[in-house]
């Protein structure tokens, strides 16, 4: 056991590192999105600031900080100011329970690569993301503008609806792994079938759940094709119409941080987390310490990059749903499908044991 002082110090260091990495990843996801969508639409995307426009996120950040922070008259001020903070705080909180790799030993202290390992980790992520909707809903309401209000209303209805399908799709994984702890779920996915198929949950009969999760996650993060809360052709910019400068940037950060959280969960729960995608991991036993620590993080980051790329790809490909289609899709297709998947998984697990 660590002493209290060391524990606090290690926790603070881990929190700072996790936040810095997450915020950098958020900034560069925006860059990646502009670049990739640009190339898909036969343009260059950002090119002016730095090589390949790599310094664009810094320029954007400086611009957000320096622009005038307008507060329109007739807004309900306390909530208007609190709403972007609520959104960004809940978006950043859920990273606390997400593990990114095995334990590391440094200066004689062994610590898991995770800010805190709680045994209800999955439920914590679900709870925190379900609170994130208040940021959007309150922003829409407190702005006192019809576009914002419609965006906020759409967001709260959509996120509550899709949360059900999302939660149900995860229960199959919990049943297969027999735990709520994200670390246990990943550990259960090590090794291979028949020598070459990895034991990821997606190959353990959870592929339907994976697609339900993927679609519900797009809706939860308000991304195209489910970006109805900020549909610019109908609602100007939806819930953040009345926001400017840093407050607008906070919503932006919250959206991309949520995307990364959802991608982390998808790779932890369905794609084997930080396990090596191809071949046996047995050689890792003899590898140097540094390789044992870094390589799993690399595999994990690769999966997250894949998901972010998928998000961007779909944004460049698909048009937006109509709102009634969105609700019908969630309630009449994803929800029954998730329940069917749950029942089948439970039956299989019960028959096996």
């Amino acid at each position, binding site marked *: 056991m660590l002493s209290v002082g060391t524990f606090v110090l290690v926790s603070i260091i881990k929190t700072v590192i996790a936040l810095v990495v997450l915020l950098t990843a958020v900034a560069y996801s925006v860059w990646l999105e502009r670049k990739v969508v640009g190339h898909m639409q036969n343009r260059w995307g950002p090119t002016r600031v730095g090589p390949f426009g790599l310094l664009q996120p810094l320029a954007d950040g400086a611009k957000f900080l320096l622009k005038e922070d307008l507060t329109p008259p007739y807004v309900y001020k306390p*909530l208007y100011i609190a709403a972007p903070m609520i959104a960004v705080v809940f978006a950043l909180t859920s990273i606390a329970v997400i593990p990114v790799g095995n334990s590391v030993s440094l200066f004689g202290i062994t610590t898991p690569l995770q800010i805190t390992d*709680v*045994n*209800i980790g999955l*439920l*914590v992520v*679900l*709870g*925190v993301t*379900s*609170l994130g*909707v*208040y940021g959007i*809903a*309150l922003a*829409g*309401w407190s702005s006192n503008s019809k576009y914002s*209000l419609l965006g*906020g*209303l759409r967001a*709260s*209805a959509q*996120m*509550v609806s899709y*949360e059900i399908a999302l*939660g149900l799709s995860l229960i199959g994984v919990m049943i297969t792994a027999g735990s*709520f702890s994200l670390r246990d779920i990943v550990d259960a996915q090590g090794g291979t079938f028949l020598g070459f198929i990895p034991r990821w949950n997606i190959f353990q009969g959870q592929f339907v759940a994976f697609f339900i999760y993927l679609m519900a996650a797009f809706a939860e993060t308000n991304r195209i094709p489910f970006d109805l809360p900020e549909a610019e052709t109908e609602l100007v910019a939806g819930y953040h119409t009345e926001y400017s400068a840093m407050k607008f940037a906070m919503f932006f950060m919250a959206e991309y941080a949520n995307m990364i959280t959802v991608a982390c969960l998808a790779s932890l729960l369905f794609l084997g987390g930080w396990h090596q995608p191809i071949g046996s991991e047995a050689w890792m036993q003899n590898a140097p310490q540094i390789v044992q620590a870094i390589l799993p993080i690399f595999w994990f980051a690769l999966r997250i990059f894949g998901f972010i790329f998928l998000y961007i790809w779909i944004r460049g490909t698909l048009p937006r749903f109509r709102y009634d289609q969105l609700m019908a899709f969630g309630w009449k297709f994803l929800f029954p499908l998730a329940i069917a998947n749950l029942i089948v998984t439970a039956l299989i697990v019960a028959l096996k044991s």
Partner: protein
Amino acid sequence: MLHLIIFLVFGLICVAGAVNLLVQSHPINSALSLIAVMASLAVEYLLLGAEFVAAVQVIIYAGAIMVLFVFVIMLLNAGVEERTSGSKVAVIFGVPGVLIGSALVAWVLLTRSDTNPVNVGALPGDPKTIAGLLFHDFLLPFEITSVLVLIAIMGAVVLASHPESVQQAKREG
């Protein structure tokens, strides 16, 4: 010791949120206070060791039910409530009533020796225990409750559907 301090802090937040819920005149502020009450209750459950109940408290109450409350307030665009000064009965009987009630509870708790306080982390609240209780020991009450909830949902659907449009659809179809 640290647990006790956190417990007391969140207990205070909980009571303050509940008082604020009653004092606020705007419905959305009241709804937000209720969310604060529920979130701090979840922390209290967590500290007592009932981690599953804490997570469910946040996901269901703070994350789903209160979102619908806020949704309805936004949808109806409910404004500041009307202030009436007529309710003198509440002041004359209510405030002394609350004081006497809490004094009685405190007196009973302090004088009776067999009421041991629950220690921090003492409740058996991990998911496996809860699942055993729900799906083994109390399966019948659990299933009956689910039927009850189903009936309530059907009632809501019937109340929400417009009878005219149903009849029109029947005539056309």
